[in-house]
């Protein structure tokens, strides 16, 4: 398959099940909601070392938020419900509770009502002065803080999700690879229910499972490292000088399907004339995850 001179590999991205939730952070204005959301989703690029994968999904108009203030929706994913609960709680406590004028709400209903704590345990920061309020069947906590009151919903829903959807952009130069990634990420950011957790949505250090060093579970994906073309069993042709990857986490397989299609299409629009040569994907022979995203089927 070739789109605008860009070859689409007959391969697939391999993804795995995760647990996810959406939280909504509001504040006096969007700037302060964004400060809090940026902190909340910081150091959350990969479960390999961060414990979770998180990013800002989109900004919200006052009409879309529970308290009628500007807000930001964040998606956060982890390998299991317990891990997700720990990450949400610690991040909410350190990055939202602490942020001036912020309030914190759940942005999703859980599968069969499944929930994890959001502000449930943060309430103890109130040292007995915290106040519970049941509004419309949902419990909120009012925690006295130095700028007034921090309002947080008690729980947030947990949904089965998919993590690790991905595609690789192979280009003739580093600037060209990055330009294609930027175009893809920009297009994908218009879509709901997905995030690209790496910096700017792009990862340049794709990994393979395992390492020659026993202490490491993952190491550089040497087959796609252009400087190793002559040293390893390379996947790269001579003209490819740079490879970058976009990793996608989503609330469902369909969400990732759609995001990959939109992202690959945007990258391909730059075409061979801009040095984009191939689109490939990372997989581990089908052994790592049950979700397979076949590039040619997605782009058909």
């Amino acid at each position: 398959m070739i789109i605008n001179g860009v070859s689409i590999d007959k391969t697939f991205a391999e993804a795995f099940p995760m647990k996810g939730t959406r939280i909504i952070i509001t504040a006096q204005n969007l700037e302060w909601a964004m400060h809090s959301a940026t902190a909340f989703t910081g150091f959350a690029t990969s479960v390999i070392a961060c414990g979770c994968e998180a990013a800002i999904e989109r900004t919200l108009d006052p009409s879309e938020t529970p308290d009628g203030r500007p807000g930001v929706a964040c998606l956060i994913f982890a390998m299991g419900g317990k891990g997700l609960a720990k990450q949400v709680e610690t991040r909410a406590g350190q990055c939202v509770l602490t942020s001036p004028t912020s309030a914190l709400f759940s942005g999703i209903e859980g599968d069969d009502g499944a929930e994890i704590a959001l502000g449930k345990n943060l309430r103890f920061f109130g040292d007995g002065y915290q106040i519970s309020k049941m509004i419309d069947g949902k419990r909120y906590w009012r925690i006295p803080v130095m700028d007034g009151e921090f309002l947080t919903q008690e729980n947030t829903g947990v949904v089965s999700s998919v993590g690790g959807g991905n595609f690789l952009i192979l280009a003739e130069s580093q600037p060209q690879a990055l330009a294609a990634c930027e175009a893809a990420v920009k297009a994908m950011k218009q879509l709901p229910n997905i995030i690209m957790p790496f910096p700017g949505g792009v990862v340049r250090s794709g990994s393979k499972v395992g390492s020659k060093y026993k202490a490491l579970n993952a190491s550089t994906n040497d087959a796609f490292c252009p400087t190793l073309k002559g040293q390893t069993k390379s996947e790269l042709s001579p003209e490819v000088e740079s490879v970058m990857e976009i990793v996608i986490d989503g609330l469902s397989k369909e969400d990732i399907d759609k995001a990959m299609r939109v992202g690959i299409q945007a990258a391909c629009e730059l075409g061979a004339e801009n040095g984009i040569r191939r689109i490939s994907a990372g997989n581990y022979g089908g052994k790592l995850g049950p979700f397979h995203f076949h590039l040619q089927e997605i782009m058909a």
Partner: protein
Amino acid sequence: MSALTLRLKTDLAQRVDCSPLTPDKLAGKDVADIAALELVSGRLTLPVDELFDISGDDVNDIRFENSSVKLDHIGHAMSQGHITIEGDAGAYLGQFMTGGNIEITGNTFIYTGCEMKGGQIKINGNAGDFVGAARSGYKNGMTGGIIIVTGNTGARTGDHMRRGMILIEGNAGEYCGSRMISGTIAVLGDVGKHLGYAMKRGTLLLTKMPQHGITANFNDCGSHTLAFLPLMFASFKKLDSQFANVEGFSRVQRYAGDVGGIGMGEILIKI
């Protein structure tokens, strides 16, 4: 199917315990069964059809017509369905109810919504003393649900109330929120003396300073913008109540008390 209608035939000499006449307890019964049910009235037990003309057959939609303040325990422990009361109702309307809704065109006697756990009661009139309260000697009043009163309430509204919401469009009597443990009471009109007496926790939300002021056992915590209030007012929008039309506010003067006890309750007054 049409609403099961129970039209009171005569003026009552004695009070009547109507607790058997709920959607839950009448489920599966036909009109003949219902007519034969016996209700306690004073020292007597009387069959339903001696007190009421019966028509209709939908036990999930029960209608009391020509109702009297002597009909007690209407909607007792109901968990679903709808009860409409044309006229007044006696004591313990909706006591222990966990779901469903009750609407009354007239006034209610004491202990409306006593220890209710869920559902909604709407009183298009006045309610007596101890709305949403605990029975004498019991520690927990209502623990869930909503009571809307379009008129006024008597004394001790929300006494020992633990959760839920009481919305009063008119005035509340003396000792409103007394011994309150949690929950919310909102009043659009005035409130009587001794507001929040022995209140432990919970919120009393007022749109204006009470005529009698705030008692000395509540301390002024200053004026604040509270983020939960817009959420609460938004939740009122779906109610059939004047509260749905109240312009939401989040700026309030906050008083904490009763400092004679643990002092964690609050009176919020719109500013």
